[in-house]
């Protein structure tokens, strides 16, 4: 095992992201109850875009040339974000919250493991090893226990 400082930083930023999500999911659901699902999702993305613009301009390393040079499909992340909201909503109505979230997280984890192994979109490769596979499976069983 060869742990470098940036791995610990990555662990910290991942945990911070999950902590923020726990709060933001409830805040966004409250807005959705007032405005409707699609309306609130649109507004959340719009407010986010307006909020992110000054951050990027002031201390981002944003370059228009880099953006132009990037493959077009890399710009589609936000489109999937919107689709996820709509599909989740439809699935919850038929499956209930627990099953929807469980399948969603398992799908997320499996696809992530495949993507890590095969290197998608110029991202670093993390090859599957026995220990890694066992770790992911233990985490998957943990997910089931949390949701039960």
């Amino acid at each position, binding site marked *: 095992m060869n742990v470098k400082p940036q*791995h610990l930083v990555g662990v910290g930023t991942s945990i911070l992201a999950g902590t923020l999500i726990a709060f933001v999911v409830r805040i966004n659901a409250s807005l959705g109850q007032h405005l409707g699902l699609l309306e*609130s999702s649109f507004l959340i993305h719009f407010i986010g875009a307006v*909020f992110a613009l000054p951050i990027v301009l002031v201390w981002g390393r*944003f370059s228009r040339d880099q953006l132009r040079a990037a493959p077009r499909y890399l710009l*589609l992340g*936000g489109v999937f974000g919107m689709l*996820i909201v709509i599909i989740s909503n439809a699935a919850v109505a038929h499956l209930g919250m627990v099953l929807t979230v469980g399948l969603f997280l398992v799908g997320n984890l499996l696809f992530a493991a495949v993507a890590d192994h095969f290197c998608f*979109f110029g991202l670093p490769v993390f090859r599957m090893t026995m220990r890694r596979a066992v770790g992911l499976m233990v985490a998957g069983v*943990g997910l089931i226990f949390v949701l039960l």
Partner: protein
Amino acid sequence: MIILFSLLAFVNGGFLMLSQLLNAGLGLRIGPFGGSLVNHVAGALFGGLLLVVGFGAGHFVFSGVPVLYFLGGCIGVFIVALFNYSVPLVGAAFMSVLWTSAQLFVSSLIDHFGWLGSEPIPISASRLVGVGLLALGAYLVFSARGGGNEA
């Protein structure tokens, strides 16, 4: 119907990862916050398109909506930027284990203590076991780093 929607929910999780990977790949080129900005612009454009076409079922009436409810989008900017920052460092799968563990643990705390105005729901034994297993799984993945990001 159940099988169809189960499959949809499963594929939807793949969509989330696809979204996270696309944004992180973009983030490598224009920075984590640049990737987050593009994500939110694209989402707003696509959402706006769906509304114009007529998929909206609600209404834009803002009276009586607490200001706090509008801040979700601002927090979301940091969440996507954090994803973009994390993926190249620890890999998508490990990041996924970490953020889902943190989210499930914190939302259990919110339920347990009744924060954000919700009715308190005590944390269950199976939840604690699950969080423990998630932590164990995260440790195993962490200690098994294979390839990637060696520089």
